[in-house]
């Protein structure tokens, strides 16, 4: 096992390549990091895992110098980190390969590698030779003359790793590098990481797939709720303990309210063999009237793509969607709404709201036909519907005419929810319905979904937040685009997360 070799290197130089010493970082009222410490030893592949919002990204931004800690310090090889403005100093010590491309697409690979380091008068031949030499050293086989925009994700990652190494850094952070790669490419990446480790390169590896942690990493650090939970050699931390560390003994704040009648007959929403290449395949399920069904899965599982295909934001390649018995034209939001769907889109800022318009206008945007006929809108009826929404969802607003941009995040999300309910939908699809809202607003939002179910709608909740899924009668789990499990209410967090991470329990 290669872990022995790495620990051998570790004995030669016991100082950590990079370390965070009880760092804290707050954004407004939320603590993104609460006295977190992390030590990355030379020559190891160190996994950093934790659920969404655990604080991984914030820790990475501190380690790469993009943000400064409020308290605590960062050190590299035992020495203090460079000052925040010294980008070159940071680049010599640490590099991060992000999920999102950071290359300049129109410029050649060679130029991207040596951006702002080309020298006063550029000799393109020499620059190409240097770039080719660099990529050959790290065994990356691409033509450096090509525009960087033509690189595949896999190639782009390798080029960015090589570029990082050329700055002198021997510590590289990989932020979910496998999220967009297929299985073969992941294997090649792991082979590459192991061979770079032999050459003295240290990695901090962020992944949502625990199986990958066991495959390639030496040490694992678990974060949860902005805190450091455990750091241990991978070989000494069984999967069950790892999952337990990630979930904690989280007791949900939301308890399923009792007294919901059994689901009715028929189907509010029926999805048959739905498929979209690159996202999901063969997804079939049914939501009955009055039933709440959860759809869970990790980041790349395709759960959002399934939900967006149902409401027409995406167009599935195969399969069919039946909403309240009728089949809306695929890929058309108006058709899905007419068929009886109502939905909360994933990102309220991008798809959910028009911030400068009033609360009432946002709430009634999907139901112009209820505001008057022949294309005319009655402001009076609009205000009435807005007032109803304010009361039903206890939205804190000065009145229906207040622009939604003036509302808090939780109240904005309630407006989005009110809009989803404005058409009295037969099928209610909620995507991340409680993202970024406080506990009280969360309860109201989920309570509203339960009310809709009680009134006979079929509700589908798609969420990363386990608390959102607690009221569900069933939770369907997607992994890499396929349904892998279904849990009935009363499931344990551990089982659900194990299924989401692709570990059969």
């Amino acid at each position: 096992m290669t872990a022995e070799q790495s620990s051998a290197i570790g004995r030669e130089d016991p100082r950590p390549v990079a370390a965070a010493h009880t760092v804290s970082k707050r954004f407004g009222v939320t603590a993104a990091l609460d006295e977190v410490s992390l030590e990355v030893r030379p020559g190891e592949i160190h996994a950093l895992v934790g659920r969404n919002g655990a604080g991984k990204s914030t820790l990475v931004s501190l380690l790469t110098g993009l943000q400064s800690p409020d308290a605590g310090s960062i050190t590299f090889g035992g020495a203090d980190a460079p000052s925040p403005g010294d980008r070159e100093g940071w680049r010599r010590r640490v590099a991060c390969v992000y999920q999102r491309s950071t290359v300049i697409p129109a410029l050649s690979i060679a130029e991207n590698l040596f951006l702002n380091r080309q020298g006063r008068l550029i000799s393109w031949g020499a620059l190409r030779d240097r770039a080719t030499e660099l990529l050959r050293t790290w065994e990356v086989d691409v033509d450096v003359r090509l525009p960087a925009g033509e690189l595949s994700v896999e190639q782009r990652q390798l080029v960015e790793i090589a570029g990082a190494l050329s700055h002198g850094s021997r510590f590289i952070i990989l932020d979910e590098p496998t999220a967009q790669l297929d299985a073969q490419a992941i294997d090649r990446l792991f082979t590459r990481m192991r061979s770079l480790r032999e050459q003295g390169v240290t990695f901090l590896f962020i992944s949502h797939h625990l199986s990958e942690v066991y495959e390639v990493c030496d040490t694992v650090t678990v974060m949860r709720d902005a805190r450091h939970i455990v750091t241990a050699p991978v070989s000494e931390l069984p999967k069950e303990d790892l999952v337990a560390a990630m979930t904690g003994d989280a007791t949900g704040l939301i308890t399923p309210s009792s007294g919901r009648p059994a689901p009715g007959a028929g189907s509010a929403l029926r999805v048959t063999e739905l498929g979209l290449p690159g996202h999901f395949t063969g997804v079939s399920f049914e939501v009955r009237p009055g039933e709440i069904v959860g759809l869970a899965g990790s980041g790349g599982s395709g759960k959002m793509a399934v939900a967006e295909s149902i409401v027409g934001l995406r167009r599935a390649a195969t399969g069919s969607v039946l909403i309240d018995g009728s089949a809306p034209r695929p890929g058309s939001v108006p058709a899905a709404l007419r068929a009886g769907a109502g939905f909360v889109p994933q990102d309220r800022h991008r798809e959910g709201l028009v911030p400068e318009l009033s609360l009432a206008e946002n709430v009634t945007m999907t139901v112009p036909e209820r505001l008057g006929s022949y294309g005319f809108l009655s402001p009076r009826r609009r205000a009435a519907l807005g007032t109803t929404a304010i009361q039903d969802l206890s939205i804190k607003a000065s009145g229906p005419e207040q622009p939604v941009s003036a509302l808090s995040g939780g109240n904005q999300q309630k407006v989005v929810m009110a809009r989803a309910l404005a058409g009295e939908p037969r099928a209610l699809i909620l995507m991340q319905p409680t993202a970024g809202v406080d506990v009280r607003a969360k309860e109201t939002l989920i309570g509203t979904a339960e009310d809709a179910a009680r009134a006979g709608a079929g509700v589908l909740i798609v969420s990363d937040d386990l608390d959102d899924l607690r009221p569900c009668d069933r939770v369907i789990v997607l992994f890499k685009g396929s349904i892998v499990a279904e849990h009935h209410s009363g499931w344990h967090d551990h089982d659900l997360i194990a299924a989401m991470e692709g570990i059969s329990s």
Partner: protein
Amino acid sequence: MSTLAVRRIGGVPLARLRDLALVPAIVAIMIIGYLVNPVFLHWDNLVNVLQQQSEISLLVLAEALVLITGRMDLSLESTFGLAPGVAAWMVLTPGLANGLGWLPGGFSIPLTLAVGVVIGLVNGLLIVKFQLNGFVVTLGMLIVLRGLLTGITGGKTFFNLPDSFLYLGNAVWLGLPASIWICLVLYAAAGVATGYTRFGRSLYAIGGNPDAARAAGIRVDRVLWTVLVIASALAALGGLLLTGRLASVAAAQGNGAIFTVFAAAVIGGVSLNGGRGTIFGAFTGILLLYLIQNVLTLAGVPAQWIGALNGGIILVALILARITSGKAQD
């Protein structure tokens, strides 16, 4: 890692080919021009075309630099008129035309360039420092500067300009008009700068991905200021050349030129979204437009129809450029 072999495009980098995309079109228009009227290929006629386009081609050069950096500057056409206008106003003695007579005639050239630099600084102040939208800022500047020129000329034309003012627009160096030399030298210099210097390449980096440029240690704001100032100075120089050739500054000098300038840059392969295009491409763009215009004149197309044909040619050229480059234009 043989699995990582990359698809190659004919062995030659695609970007290179795109630079030369208009060369076949220019050759074709030369042949057509010769068939329409053999006079077209006469040395004198070609020199004439080059001189006519030399002034506006400096505007194209200026706009190309700004566009590559991912911004736009509409005010260049007004700078083109106002800069020599202010210089004329300062040096002319009161009499037939408006004039202050504050400075001797020898100051006219430095004065013109200084006005260009000041306008560039104001643009930079508003766009870079105050983070205002570049399109709207330079639209406002376009109107303000045009209005200033109308104000100082009193809506009329400055003439009786001192000799030093007219020198660059009239001089002949080594058998060619000085304005052609100036134009070619500046294009060559800009071509080398954008192709082979760190400063020049930073324009592409900023236009392509400002965040990545900043992360690479490029001083984005400073580069933007510099480019805006250089662009305005180039526009002022272009105006100076035209003033010299026509021996006057009309209140409408440069009016409407910005549309031709944008068309030439885009036809020449410069992206309106920044980060793409070359100085050489921009030059072929404006050259092609003027060659076509010359052919139309030689073919005896009535002057009233030239405008409509010009617009049509710009659209056809855009379509051709879209087909030859194979990529969506932005």
